[in-house]
């Protein structure tokens, strides 16, 4: 064997091993999520077998009774056949409906589990479109190829096919090996060895032919599937994010974007329909293979059974039974091959999901507990930190050295893209620095328990999200909330008036913030911002991060927040990012970023005196608020 062949063989062996592992994984998952499911499917399979074979077997004694005018026999077996058929069907019906319920539970349980995963992975992976696409593809494959319940169903159908094969072969063997009792050329055909050889030969020939054809088709199918998933994912984006998304319709109409979007959609849609038509050709060939084999075999089955009967090798009453048994041989064999091919085809998709579920959070590197300190003594230091976003060549932060004094308010300012938000994302440890390190109370933050470290921060980001839950649940991030605390936080955030309105309307704290169909309901941007602030307060972190906390607020609400700042912040270390320079007045420390580096630092008046970037930004904004006679810049 050549080296290449050896490698190929080894990799095939490896593939098979992995496939078995995936299979076992699926079975384990199903067992964890719904213990009763697998046994039920097994029972269902056996029941299905029974419904096929009971009539086949029981028809014989009935016919026998009629043919030999043994009325007693015909009567008892006939009634048994009728009764048993109905009973089996009733049972089958019940079980299949019960399975539907269990299957739906299983489906939803797994759906929940798989969707939890992206949320527990590290932040960089949530922003990485490759990782997201891997998830989407795995999920789309499940939608297209079937969930676990279908997969288990198929496994057991495979088992059922095998059992059916064994049963039908046994019955057929009796037929084939029976010896003719008459003379003539027919009896030659009916000889056990001839009948058996021809039958077996035909089965083998048909199987080989169809297998070859089906293998080729399987390769084509796989290729089309992969193409299909890509097109489907793209189309899904256009449909979900552009066509059916909330809030953009006025824009599309006013800017007359509709022709452009229509052309775009049509192009992708055409790709999908083209794929469908191509895939259909494969399906038609598969049907052809299956039915031609079935046809040939059925004909042969009745022929052999008929000849055997005509040569008295077997009694007439058995003809229906034997013919159907032979037919079942080919049917079960074909079904078995088909199911095996389908399962083999689906294994890679389940492997994708298995691999995805096995991913770990890259940032969970530490174990030191972080106690939520009531005294909020939290000292954060950045030591020579530099950072590049994944996949980017540009330094977003360069050689940042800063210590945030405990319990003080720090403003972080700079032009767009200077690195302010990046600074804060590193502080919270949503990203790890590319170079340098960050310390909490002198210890590298990577050593701390990750989840506990995150809880140290109460953050309101610029693009904060509220969810389709009641107001109180959004604030508390829990279904069981401390009502008094929720109210206190909302009050500090300036939401009391609106809350009173909600209570008048009836639902108060239980009012839904957004609907499942998309879009926040009747809360303005400012009201939403106040709820986000309340949420940050409820969290009781020691470090507050406020990224443009008043961007959506009108001047009155903004002043309101500033007025309550002392209550809101209390003694927490606070980091303010804002383009509204006014917020700097509340901070004892102002850090000025430019192109990823800290260029200035100090308190307001000293920075103004320096006449650098800060002074420039201040002046640019302040000048519009100054009237004649007001002096704002420090003299000197």
């Amino acid at each position, binding site marked *: 064997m050549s080296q290449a062949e050896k490698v190929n063989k080894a990799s095939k062996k490896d593939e098979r091993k992995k496939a078995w592992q995936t299979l076992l994984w699926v079975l384990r998952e199903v067992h964890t999520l719904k213990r009763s499911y697998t046994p039920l499917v097994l029972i269902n399979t056996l029941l299905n077998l029974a419904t096929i074979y009971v009539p086949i077997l029981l028809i014989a004694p009935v016919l026998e009774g009629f043919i030999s005018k043994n009325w007693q026999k015909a009567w008892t077996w006939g009634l048994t056949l009728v009764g048993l058929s109905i009973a089996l069907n009733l049972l089958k019906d019940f079980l299949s409906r019960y399975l539907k319920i269990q299957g739906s539970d299983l489906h939803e349980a797994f759906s929940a589990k798989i969707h939890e995963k992206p949320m527990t992975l590290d932040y960089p992976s949530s922003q990485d479109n490759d990782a997201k696409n891997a998830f989407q593809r795995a999920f789309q494959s499940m939608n297209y190829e079937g969930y676990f319940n279908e997969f288990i169903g198929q496994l057991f159908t495979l088992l059922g096919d095998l059992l059916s094969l064994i049963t039908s072969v046994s019955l057929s063997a009796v037929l084939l090996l029976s010896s003719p009792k008459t003379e003539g050329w027919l009896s030659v055909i009916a000889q056990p060895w001839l009948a058996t050889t021809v039958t077996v030969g035909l089965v083998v020939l048909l199987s080989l032919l169809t297998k070859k054809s089906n293998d080729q088709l399987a390769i084509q199918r796989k290729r089309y599937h992969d193409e299909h998933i890509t097109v489907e994912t793209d189309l899904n984006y256009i449909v979900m994010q552009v066509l059916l998304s909330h809030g953009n319709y006025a824009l599309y109409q006013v800017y007359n974007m509709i022709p452009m979007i229509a052309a*775009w959609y049509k192009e992708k849609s055409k790709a999908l329909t083209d794929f469908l038509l191509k895939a259909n050709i494969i399906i038609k060939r598969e049907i052809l293979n299956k039915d031609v084999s079935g046809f040939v075999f059925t004909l042969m089955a*009745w022929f052999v059974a008929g000849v055997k009967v005509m040569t008295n090798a077997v009694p007439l009453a058995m003809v229906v039974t034997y013919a159907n048994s032979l037919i079942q041989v080919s049917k079960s064999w074909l079904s078995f091959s088909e199911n095996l091919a389908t399962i083999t085809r689906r294994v890679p998709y389940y492997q994708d999901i298995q691999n995805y579920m096995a991913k770990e959070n890259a940032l969970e590197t530490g174990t030191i507990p972080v106690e939520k300190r009531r005294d909020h003594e939290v000292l954060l230091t950045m030591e020579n930190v530099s950072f590049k976003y994944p996949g980017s060549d540009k330094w977003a932060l360069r050689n940042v050295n800063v210590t945030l004094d405990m319990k003080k308010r720090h403003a972080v300012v700079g032009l767009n893209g200077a690195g302010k938000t990046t600074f804060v994302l590193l502080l919270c440890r949503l990203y790890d620095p590319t170079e340098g390190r960050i310390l909490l109370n002198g210890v590298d933050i990577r050593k701390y328990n990750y989840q506990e470290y995150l809880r140290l921060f109460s953050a309101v980001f610029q693009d904060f999200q509220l969810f389709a839950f009641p107001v109180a649940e959004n604030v508390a991030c829990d279904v069981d909330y401390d009502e008094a605390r929720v109210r206190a936080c909302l009050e500090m955030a300036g939401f009391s008036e609106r809350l009173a309105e909600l209570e008048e309307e009836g639902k108060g704290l239980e009012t839904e913030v957004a609907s499942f169909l998309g879009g926040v309901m009747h809360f303005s941007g400012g009201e939403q911002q106040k709820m986000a602030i309340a949420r940050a307060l409820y969290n009781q972190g020691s470090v507050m991060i406020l990224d443009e906390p008043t961007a959506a607020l009108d001047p009155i609400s903004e002043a309101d927040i500033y007025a309550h700042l002392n209550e809101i912040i209390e003694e927490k270390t606070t980091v303010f990012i804002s383009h509204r320079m006014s917020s700097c007045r509340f901070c004892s420390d102002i850090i000025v970023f430019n192109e990823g580096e800290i260029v200035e630092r100090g308190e307001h008046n000293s920075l103004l005196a320096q006449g650098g970037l800060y002074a420039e930004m201040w002046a640019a904004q302040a000048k519009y608020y100054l009237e004649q006679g007001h002096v704002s810049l420090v003299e000197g």
Partner: protein
Amino acid sequence: MKHLWKNFTFLCGEWRKLPIKKTAWLYFFLYFLSGGVVAVLTVLVPSQAVVSLQNFETFLPFLGLVAALGLALFLQNILQNETYMLSFLFRLLEAYPAAMKPMLLPAEQMEGPKGKEQRNYISAAVYWGNELGVEGFMTNIRDIVANLINTLIYILLSARLEWKWLPLILLPAVGQGIMSLIFMKQINEKNQERQNLWAEGHYMQSIALKNEAAKDVRLYPIVDIFKKKYLDLRKRWHVYVSGKQYRLFAADASFWLLSIARDVIVFIVLFRRVQAGMPVSDFVLYMGVILGISAYVSGIFNKIALLFQNNFVVTHFREAMQQPEYDQTGTPGLVPQGLGTIRFENVSYSYSSENENTKWALKNINLTIKPGEKIALVGENGAGKTTLVKLATGIFTPTRGEIYYDGINVKEFKPTELYKKVAMVFQNMTIIATTLAENITCQPESEIDYERLNWAIEKAGLSEVVARLSEGVHSQLTTYLHKDGVNLSGGENQRLMLARALYKGGDILILDEPTAALDPLAEAALYERYHELAENQTAVFISHRLSSTQFCDRVVFLKEGEIVETGTHASLMEAKGAYQHMFQEQAKYYQTEAAL
């Protein structure tokens, strides 16, 4: 149920509009035909088997019959696949007009709760898989018709034996039918619930994948609440599914139990006939036929359950699709002339329909905006600024009162004509996964005026950004469809929105918080250029940064839906009213020396 026929004719109409082969109906017809042949031969073959094995001469024709059955089965399978594919194709092609529809309906309607529901139904009709929606509907009908035809064939066959038995044969079917109808009503009442459960599930899943939610999801215990909510959702799904399946089973069970009675009676009668001399082959035939009727009728009722579910979805889908498009109102050919005066006369607006407790977003607005005037619209959150602007541009229609453009009532114009005059920058940033050029110009590549594009980019302060990109204006934005796409920052996106408005031009420019994400220097640069940007346009500027009002000719102050003050910045400052108070609240931080 009464919508069933309307839905069917509607979908057939839609089918005809699409590029699906005209001979499609032939495939369906042949499918039913082959199904009928299969039905007959399936009972004929076993019955003839016993009889034709007397000698070889009768055996060959019997084999012929077997061959015919095989052939018919083959045709039936092929045609079943073909008809299934045709329905699948129908759904995919119909998805295009379906998905386009929300964009063609009045934006006002689409932004509201009704619009969201309609989108959900459209989604369900064409995007939720093969079993549900328009495809499921057609496939269900196909299956029901096929089963119906086969049932009729079997009934005819059994009537040949004894037509007086017809009621007996049909008894189990009738029993199941009655039970089904009773339960169907109960199941259908839950159809809306099913839609809601789906919507909730989709929402929960979208949280997991939403880029913007990723920070909050990690910094707050969102995963925990997600788990609890999803668990609750699963419980409710279980209740829905089990309720439905148990009811369907009750209907099935009645069928099977009645069938035992019927089958036993039929068996006894047939038995006596055989004793009296009827050939065994006939016995086999009629047993096969009567058992077969059970199977087909049962199949009909199973499919009817599915059909009702799909019918519900298709009904709502049809209603959405039959809605008039946004461009249906107004006089064709009527074009607003140049820069016109915009006049609001006693305009009031409510987001919900009028009743005693109507919450008015705007009340009795009387406002005249002169051509070329630059208005600053200010007020507290929720005062109605965005609503006013949407009314001025024709996106919303007043609940009460009239709006005049150059003396002509705005309702007289076609919305498309009005929209040609308007360019706006709204608060939410909308970037789609296509090139920078297409995002700004909103036109396909072939239509782009590159000179104008570059002018707009320069004026919006986007030139540096474009220079930085390796593919310039042809760079793909976002990474949704292209791995190496570019994600612009908040400030850059905001400038892109402005470039879009500038490229469009028009007579009316609306800027809603256009500097919210800009740093102080970029903001100042925008203000400096403001008059230049909106040179020949009427402009409305909404901003919480009151510094911007100085560039406007007039300030309009809204409070709780009413105009409380209007005038120049200077005159309002002197008046020391609501505007001056608000201005001071913001200005004070820039004016005092001492730290606060």
